[in-house]
C-alpha cells in the first residue's frame, strides 16, 4: 500500500502539534519517522489512525484521497497500529484480543472461536509470530504481548503497519528479533511506518527517514547519515551525546543493600536477593528491561514497599523498614518513575509541589500551621535556581511542560540536602534540552560527593551517567560492570545471562 500525507495540521487550542506535515510511504518500505519527545509524532499517528481529526490536510491511500474518521475505518482501509502502550485487554485471551471488533460469527451473534484460533495459527506460521491463542494476555511477557499486537493488526489484513516506539520495552536481543520481523513483513510487501527517537535503530532498519521537530518536517535523511547529523537535525542544534564528568573518585560506602527480597503487587517475588553498594561520589546506574524488578527495588528503598528479607543501610543506619516519610527524612531523595502519578499533584500549585514531601519541616510549618511565606520564598528561590519555566509559582503543576514538571521534582529533591538520590527513569518522555539539564544536575550532585542510584531502561543514559552499571534481570542482579563494557555484553546481561567479572 502506498500512503501519502499532505499538509497535515493539527492544533490544540493555540498550540500547533502538527504543522503542514507531508510524507510518503511506498509499499514494502520501512519508513522511519524520527523526532524527539514532544515533536508531534504521536499526534500525527493518531491522526493517521483516525483517533484525532486533522484541522487541515489530507490522507491519500494508493493515490486516492481517503478521509479517516475513526480507527475502525483506518483498520478497514488496511492501516494497522502497534501502540506504544499496548491496546490489549489484559484479562482477555490472545484469541479474544485478536478478533475483538472483527469477530467471526455463528448463529445468535455467537463468536466462532474455532475459526478465530485457526486464523491466528495460520498468521503465526506465515509471519513466524508464535503465540498460544488461548493464553491470557496479562500472563504473557511484554515481548509476546507486542507480538499479539502485531498479529492483531495483520489479522485485519493490514497493508501498512505503524509501530509507535516499539522498542522501548524490549531487550537488545528482542529488538533484533523485532527488526527481523519488520524486515520479513516488508519483504512480504507490507509498508511500515516506524516511529522512534532512537538514532541507532533508525540507522539499522530504515529505508527512508523523515525527521520532525516542533510539529514540522525539518528534513529527510538517508540511513547512511551519521548519528550526530541525525541528532542535530532532530534537535535543531548540535547535541553533545556524552556527559562530561569529573574523574571517578569514590569515597566511603553510602548505601549498602544486602540480599533484598521484595514482592510485587500480586505477591510474587519481584526482587530476589539483590545486593549492591554505592559509594560517595558515585553513580550506580541500574540497567534492565522494564518489569525485571527495578520498580519494586526502588519502591523498597524509599519505603513504599515492604521488605520481606534482607537489609538496606544508609551511612551505617539501618533503614530497611522505614516508612516513606522516615526514609525521606533519613536523607533519601526520590525521583519517581511516573512523575505525574507519584511525583506531583498536578492540580496544586508549583509552590506546594516544591514542598510536597517536607510540608511539616521548618521553616515551612510550625506546630501544625503552615508558614505560607516560607513556602513562597522557597518556591521563588528554586524556580530561579533550577530555571523552572512557569507563569507563576501559584500556577498549577499541570500547566507546566513535561520537562519543567521534572525540573520541579529535581529541584525539590536536590534542594533538600539529601545523602543519597534514587532516580527512576528520570528522563523518560523529556526533550533533549531537558534531558541534558537533568543529567547535568545529577552529575553536579555526584561531584559534590553524594551517592546516586539511577534506574533507566535507556541504555544510552545508563552508559552516559553510570560510574558502574548494574544490570537487573528477573529480580536478580545479573552483573555489575564497568561503563566501558560493550552494548552487546550488557544486552546479554539484560537477557539474563550471568557474568563473572574480575575486579568489580
Amino acid at each position, binding site marked *: 500500500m502506498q500512503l501519502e500525507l499532505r499538509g497535515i495540521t493539527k492544533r490544540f487550542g493555540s498550540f500547533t502539534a502538527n504543522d503542514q506535515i507531508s510524507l510518503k510511504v511506498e509499499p514494502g518500505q520501512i519508513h522511519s519517522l524520527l523526532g524527539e519527545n514532544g515533536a508531534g509524532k504521536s499526534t500525527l499517528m493518531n491522526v493517521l489512525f483516525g483517533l484525532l481529526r486533522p484541522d487541515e490536510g489530507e490522507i491519500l491511500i494508493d493515490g486516492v484521497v481517503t478521509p479517516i474518521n475513526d480507527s475502525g475505518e483506518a483498520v478497514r482501509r488496511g492501516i494497522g497500529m502497534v501502540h506504544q502502550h499496548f491496546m490489549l485487554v489484559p*484479562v*482477555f485471551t490472545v484469541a479474544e484480543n485478536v*478478533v475483538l471488533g472483527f469477530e467471526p460469527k455463528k448463529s445468535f451473534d*455467537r463468536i466462532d472461536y474455532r475459526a478465530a484460533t485457526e486464523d491466528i495459527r495460520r498468521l503465526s506460521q506465515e509471519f513466524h509470530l508464535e503465540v498460544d491463542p488461548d493464553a491470557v494476555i496479562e500472563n504473557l511477557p511484554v515481548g509476546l504481548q507486542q507480538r499479539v499486537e502485531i498479529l492483531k493488526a495483520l489479522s485485519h489484513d493490514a497493508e501498512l503497519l505503524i509501530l509507535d516506539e516499539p522498542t522501548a520495552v524490549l531487550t537488545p536481543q528482542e529488538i533484533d528479533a523485532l527488526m527481523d520481523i519488520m524486515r520479513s513483513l516488508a519483504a512480504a510487501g507490507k509498508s511500515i511506518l516506524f516511529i522512534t527517537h532512537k538514532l541507532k535503530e533508525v540507522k539499522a532498519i530504515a529505508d527512508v527517514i523523515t525527521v520532525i521537530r516542533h510539529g514540522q518536517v525539518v528534513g529527510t535523511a538517508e540511513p547512511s547519515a551519521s548519528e550526530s547529523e541525525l541528532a542535530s537535525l532532530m534537535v535543531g542544534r548540535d547535541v553533545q551525546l556524552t556527559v562530561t564528568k569529573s574523574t571517578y573518585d569514590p569515597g566511603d560506602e553510602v548505601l549498602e543493600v544486602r540480599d533484598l527480597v521484595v514482592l510485587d503487587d500480586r505477591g510474587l517475588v519481584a526482587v530476589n536477593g539483590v545486593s549492591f553498594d554505592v559509594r560517595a561520589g558515585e553513580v550506580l546506574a541500574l540497567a534492565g528491561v522494564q518489569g525485571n524488578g527495578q520498580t519494586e527495588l526502588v519502591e523498597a528503598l524509599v519505603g513504599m514497599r515492604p521488605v520481606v528479607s534482607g537489609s538496606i543501610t544508609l551511612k551505617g543506619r539501618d533503614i530497611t523498614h522505614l516508612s516513606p516519610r522516615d526514609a525521606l527524612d533519613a536523607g533519601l531523595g526520590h525521583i519517581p518513575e511516573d512523575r505525574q502519578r507519584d511525583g506531583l499533584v498536578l492540580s496544586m500549585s508549583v509552590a506546594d509541589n516544591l514542598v510536597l514531601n517536607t510540608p511539616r519541616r521548618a521553616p515551612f510549618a510550625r506546630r501544625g500551621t503552615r508558614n505560607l511565606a516560607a513556602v513562597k520564598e522557597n518556591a521563588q528561590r528554586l524556580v530561579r535556581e533550577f530555571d523552572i519555566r512557569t507563569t507563576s509559582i501559584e500556577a498549577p503543576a499541570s500547566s507546566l511542560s513535561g520537562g519543567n514538571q521534572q525540573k520541579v521534582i529535581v529541584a525539590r529533591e536536590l534542594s533538600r540536602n539529601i545523602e543519597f538520590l534514587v532516580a527512576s527513569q528520570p528522563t523518560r518522555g523529556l526533550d533533549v534540552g531537558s534531558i541534558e539539564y537533568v543529567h547535568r544536575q545529577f552529575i553536579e550532585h555526584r561531584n559534590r560527593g553524594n551517592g546516586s542510584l539511577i534506574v533507566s531502561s535507556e541504555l544510552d543514559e545508563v552508559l552516559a551517567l553510570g560510574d558502574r552499571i548494574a544490570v537487573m534481570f528477573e529480580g536478580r542482579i545479573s552483573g555489575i560492570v564497568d561503563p566501558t563494557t560493550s552494548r552487546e555484553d550488557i544486552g546479554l546481561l539484560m537477557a539474563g545471562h550471568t*557474568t563473572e567479572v574480575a575486579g568489580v
Partner: protein
Amino acid sequence: MSLVSTTPVATTTPIIKSARTRVIAVIMAVIGLFSFVVFGLGSTVRSHAALSFTPLNLVNAPWHLGSLTVATRWTDIVLSLIIVALAAEVFIRQPSRGVMPRFGIAAILFLVTLLFWAARTDGPSQVNSVNVTSILVGCSATVMVLVFGSLSGVMCERAGVVNIAIEGQFIAGAFLGSMIASTTGNFFYAAIAGAVVGGLIGLVLAFFALRYQSDQIIVGIVLVTMLSSLSSYLNLQVFTPFPNFNTGNLASNLAIPILSKIPIIGPVLFNQSAFFYLMIVLVAVVSFALFKTRYGLHVRAVGEHPRAAATVGINVVRVRYINVVLGGAIAGIGGVAFMATQGQFQVGYTSGLGYIALAALIFGRWRPSGAVVASIIFGLTVYLSYELVTYQVPVSLYFLQMIPYLITIGVVAGLIGRVRPPAADGQPYLRD
C-alpha cells in the same frame, strides 16, 4: 571479561498470604463461637423443635411431608462447630480461592442456627416449629428483587459505568408499577412502564456520566435522593387524593404443571409470579449475551480497556449508553416486581435493597451466576431478619433489622481488593 551463558529460571511463586484472609477467618470464628455459646449452650429451656415442610399457600399439595423433630440445641452446637472449623481451616491453610464462598456458607449456617434458636426460645407465643418451605418461599421474593438489581449492576458495570442509582430505579419502578397495575389491573403493562422509567433513569445517569464525565457515584446518589423525595412528593400529590391509583394488588402465581408439585422445590421455584420466571430468563440471557456473543465481548472490552476497544472501531460511548439504559430497565422491572410482592407502593419501603443488590453484585464478582448466589445469601438474610420478629426472640427487633446491613458491610470489607472489578469501572472515558 568472560560471559558465561546460563539463563536463570525465574522464581515466581506467590509466597505472600493476604492478611485480609486471616481477618475474614477471625470474623468467621467470632460468628461461630457466638452461635456456639449463645444459641448452643445458652437458652436451655427447650432443646427440640419441629421442622415442617408443607407449604401454607399450596393448599392442595399432592404431597405431605411429616414434621421432623430435631434436637435443635445439638444441631446448633454442631453447626456452630462447623463454622468454627471452617474458620480454622481458612486461618491455617489460607486458601487462595474460595474464601468468600466459605464465608457465605458460614453466614447461612449462622442464620440457620439463629432460626433454630429462635424457634425454641421462650416467648409469649412460642412457635416451636420452623416451616422450611414457607421460609424459602418467603425469601424467594426478596431474592428475586435482589437478582434484578444486581443483574442491572452487571449490565452497567461490565460496560464500565457504576450504577448506584439502582435503589432509585427500584423506587421509580415500584411507584409507576403500582399506578399502572392499579389502573389497568395488568402487571404486563406495569412491567413495561417499570422498564421504561428505569431505562430513562439509566439514560439520565448515562447522559451525565458519559457526555459530561460527571462523577458517576455522585450522580447516582443524587438521582436516588431526587427519586425518593419525588416519590414521596407524588405519593402525597397523587396517591393520597386519588387512592385508586395505588389500590394494590399482588401479582398472582402461575403454577407450572407437574413441576410445581415437587415437594419443597416445587412451591419455591415453580409456583411463582411471572416476574420470577422473567428473572430466571433474564439471568440466562444476560449470561449468554455477556460471555458468548460478540456484543458481550464488546461490552467487556469497553469495561476493561475502553481505549483498546475504541482502536478496533467499537463505539465505547454507544455501548455504554445501551448497557446503562438496559440495566436501568432491568432494575425498573425489579421495582415493579418488588411492588408486586408487597401489593402497593409505600414511601421508603425499598429500604436500601438497591444498595444491597450492589453488594451482591460485588460478591458475585460481576457475573450473573455469582449475582444469583449472592442474592440468595443476602435475600435469606433480609427475609429472616424480618421473619424472626414473629418468633418472639428475646432480642430487640431493631437489632435483628441491623443484621443484613452488617453482613453486607462484612462482605464488602472482606471482598474488596480480593475481587477484581472491570478495570475501567467508574472511570470517565475521554475521547481525545
